[in-house]
């Protein structure tokens, strides 16, 4: 798989799953945080800041800072660093409102 950032010595055999980030199909390990799967795929920008428009990604990695939040299976503002990945999960950058706005533009 294209997880070029995986370090060699992962002890237990882990189950590979497919998930989606902004519609793009990626692979990760079942049960690892979504943020870990994204980073394994070299993805650093998880969302853009609603106020400044800048890219944002992982900062604290343990749920305190909320910088890695994303929409996961329709639920907005989920902390991807705390949320285990699983088969078929759909992850979107940005808040639910931004996402709805995008859909309006399309219609």
């Amino acid at each position, binding site marked *: 798989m294209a997880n070029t*950032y*995986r*370090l*060699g*010595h*992962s002890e237990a055999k882990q189950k590979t799953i497919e998930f989606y980030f902004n519609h793009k199909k990626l692979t990760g390990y079942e*049960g*690892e*945080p979504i943020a*870990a799967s994204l*980073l*394994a795929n070299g993805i*650093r*920008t*998880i969302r853009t*800041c609603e106020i*400044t428009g*800048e*890219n*944002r*990604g*992982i*900062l*604290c*990695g*343990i*749920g*305190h800072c909320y910088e890695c939040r994303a929409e996961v299976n329709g639920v907005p503002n989920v902390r991807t*660093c*705390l*949320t*285990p990945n699983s088969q078929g999960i759909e992850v979107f950058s940005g808040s639910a409102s931004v996402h709805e706005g995008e859909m309006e533009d399309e219609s």
Partner: protein
Amino acid sequence: MKVDVAIIGAGPAGLTAAIEIMQNGLSVAVIDEYYRPGGRLLGQHYEDPNAPPDERVWNGKKVAEQLAEKARALGVQIFTGVTAWSVSRKWEIAITGAEVNTVSASALLLATGSIEKALPIPGWTLPGAISIGAAQTFTNLHHIAVGKRVMIAGVDPLSLSVMIEMKNAGIDVAGMALPSFTPALGYRHSPADTTLLLTDVAGLAPNAFVRRFGKFALARFPRLIARTLRFNFLKVNGVPIHLRKSVVKIEGEGQVEAVLLQSVTVDGEPVGDVERVEVDTVCLSAGLYPLVDLAQTTGCRLVDIPELGGTVPLHGEDMSTQVDGLFVAGNITGIEGAKVAMAQGKLSAISILESLGTSGSMTVDKAMKKVEEARKIAPLRFLPEIDAGREKMNTIWEKEGIR
């Protein structure tokens, strides 16, 4: 859900407390936001030359798994991926992320640990600029490289040990340097201060610090040593430690592409040329501070003791607080290592058992001594004045705290 004791935080303190309480006949629920139990243990992996031979390699993840397994086998209910968002008196804990919405208990132990201090450097919001704790978690727990080439801003016991862990995992660490000197922020990470902070790291690993200076010299002559340290003079595990340079800016289009380093004087004033180092990742390290928000909502009095790492709940040496039925243990009481947290967890459990009319596996006095012993043999100190901090807390407690 109703239990005798609710514990918030499934780190070394919370899990150790849960085991002790359960072993002495009371029921326990432990609540933690992370998706697996262990807290900061999960990222820890280092060598402790002072430990007994079979404990020399400290594999925090394994310790966490053993503690959680033991707790579960005893019947402790561990809620992971569950957020405790409110606690009200006597005790009702509102939670989200579980089948149940509240846990009620006769006693509450807050073992919420600590959180990293932010390190603002121009460009620190760029993706690729992450905290040193995140780097530790991704390296040791998830086995994912945080980047292809890494610069560490902030030279302290934690960042040094994470640097060694990243190197061991095969990650290219370009170097470590001080954070920029910014008067507006009230920061002062001068080479002299930093050298003093590193005194205790000398005991952590066989590295250049020990060989060159040893503990004694570092403690005694920090300014002298800082002056002696020329650029690239010091290397640890092949990584240059720039004690006379600081990261003044993080650059990149949309994500980290480089850092700018500038030389500083012994007192931390920037002087001289700026040098650009291409990296895709910057780890920011500014230390930890106790996470006290839930304690604050209970009405527990907080006291500011910088030697303990910041504002902490007022508590006695037995881990009780002024609030009836509220106890604390672990890094919420001051920043120390996992073994101290475990000893504090056990002590708090024994105090809780006694407050509920029963007793633990040893007396409170004995358990307090065990905390002292753990502190004495701790492999590294995150805060050099921790003993003075503990003493301050005891003095305030004796004067104003005891109910």
